[in-house]
């Protein structure tokens, strides 16, 4: 049985990759994908800790987080599409003005 530490370390690596991607990508959609990656790394850590403590509460929390992620994606992609209607780009460097 693999120790919990290895799962947490993997979650840390995935989270860091997601954070690097969020900082370096310039397309709003790809930044969004990196946020999803970071969320999943956090989920992996929660599930690993759930096994370490033998407690199902963490797994229920992951279920709630999955639902939150679905809601977040629906709204976020909706906002990206709404912006794209005004300005046909998803480059966040171009979309730097707050006035729309």
């Amino acid at each position, binding site marked *: 049985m693999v120790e919990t530490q290895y799962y947490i370390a993997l979650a840390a690596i995935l989270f860091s990759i997601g954070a690097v991607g969020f900082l370096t990508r310039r397309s709003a959609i790809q930044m969004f*994908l990196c946020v999803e990656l970071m969320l999943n790394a956090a989920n992996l850590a929660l599930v690993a800790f759930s096994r370490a403590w033998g407690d199902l509460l963490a797994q229920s929390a992951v279920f709630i987080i999955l639902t939150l992620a679905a*809601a977040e994606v629906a709204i976020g992609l909706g906002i990206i599409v709404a912006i794209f209607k005004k300005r046909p780009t998803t480059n966040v460097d171009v979309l730097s003005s707050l006035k729309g």
Partner: protein
Amino acid sequence: MVVFVILAVLAIAGAIGTISFKSGIYSALSLVGTLLTLAMMYVTLHAQFLASVQVMVYAGAIMVLFLFVIMLLNESQMSGADPLPWVQPVAIAGGIVLAAALAFTAFQFKAPKNLETATAALQGGTPGAIGETLFTKFLLPFEAVSILLLIAAIGAVSLVHRQPAHNEALETTSEHATDNAYSDETSSNPAKVVA
């Protein structure tokens, strides 16, 4: 351990693909690979219900939504110079430091219980076991998140909603209908005048 190493390598490869591909579709498909390996990892962690939900909701619904939007917007490749070219090396260095620090902290973790007995308490993470926790201790968050999903659905619809008055398809058909009516009158009227 062998299974874990294989899955970990696949997950990291998918994650690196997600952040390094220029094309949005390749990025999204790499992320699907990572999500599927994470689902397999949930099975090895005795979270069977979460593994199936991960495949259905994440790799299925959410990523299909992403692919739909990427194809709908059909964005071209990013052009022009990066206005902040120093961000990339700094971000990569910072990411390596972050990963090292978090991984170091992870190895400070002392297992609070014997792993065998703790795993037995999970009952395999089956839907029945999860549902019991979800509908007793997590009842309020469960109801709150259901309201949140409803709000998100309404919000998404209102964000991309087009006003019915500006519906081009309806307007053009009704205009054509009135145009035809007018042209009928004008074409019949001269005939009456002549007659």
